[in-house]
């Protein structure tokens, strides 16, 4: 649907503006898995306050916007087993790869980082194969 594409482009540009602010003002790469992962494993203890405030904005502001606009409806699978496996894979995978869609995808590709481009190709291919198997072969999602 072309209207979704326009919202995608606008939303994407806002994501780019957020990453640009974090880089040009705070001097940091805006990677969601790195910001939260550093708090979980203790490697980001030195700037924990900055990380926590980033996450506070990330959780509460879209929450308020979604409830205010009446779009706060979950479309996640109700299969908790799938969510547990998926969460573990995302957690382990992003720490091993040291980045996710925001760090490797948005911030890496935009500076033509070979690591970012390679990581993005690998997770896109793995995601495509997983949806093919999970949806069309096993029928679990």
């Amino acid at each position: 649907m072309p209207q979704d594409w326009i919202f995608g482009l606008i939303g994407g540009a806002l994501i780019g503006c957020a990453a640009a602010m974090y880089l040009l003002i705070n001097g940091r790469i805006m990677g969601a898995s790195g910001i939260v992962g550093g708090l979980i494993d203790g490697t980001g203890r030195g700037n924990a306050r900055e990380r926590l405030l980033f996450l506070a904005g990330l959780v509460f502001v879209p929450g308020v916007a979604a409830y205010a606009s009446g779009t706060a409806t979950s479309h996640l699978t109700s299969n908790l087993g799938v969510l547990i496996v998926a969460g573990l894979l995302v957690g382990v995978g992003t720490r091993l790869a040291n980045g996710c869609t925001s760090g490797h995808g948005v911030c890496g590709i935009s500076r033509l980082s070979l690591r970012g481009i390679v990581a993005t190709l690998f997770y896109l291919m793995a995601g495509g194969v997983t949806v093919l198997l999970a949806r069309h072969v096993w029928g679990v999602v």
Partner: protein
Amino acid sequence: MRGLWAFLAGSLFGIGLLISGMTDPRKVIGWLDIFGNWDPTLAFVLGGAVGVMSIAWAMARKSTTPVLGGTFPAPSDPRLERRLAIGSVLFGMGWGLSGLCPGPAMASITWTGTGGAVFLVAMGVGMFAAPNFGKSRMPAPS
């Protein structure tokens, strides 16, 4: 000041994820479903974000320090280790199964209920356990 700007960046990131459709797992799975009813929206999201961010990197190259002091991130490490590939494949599998990656999972936690909380706890456990499988940590993403 650093905290205030971090809060603003996180807020803008969250609003961008919400508007773009990234917080809707149906759109993410639709984007990865290239053999089904493929939804190309995420290409526009990534294109918009990378377009703006490549201007920011060009600005960073021209200036010496970030506005609030300190240093810019080190140049991207050209080394490709096995853990980058293995980790990205594992991440892609979890992303495809759930339609969630770390940013949108946190941005949507106020309305995804038990399922969203279960995903985030599992993700946190995975992040905590992960360094034990690998060797040296790379300094910064990308």
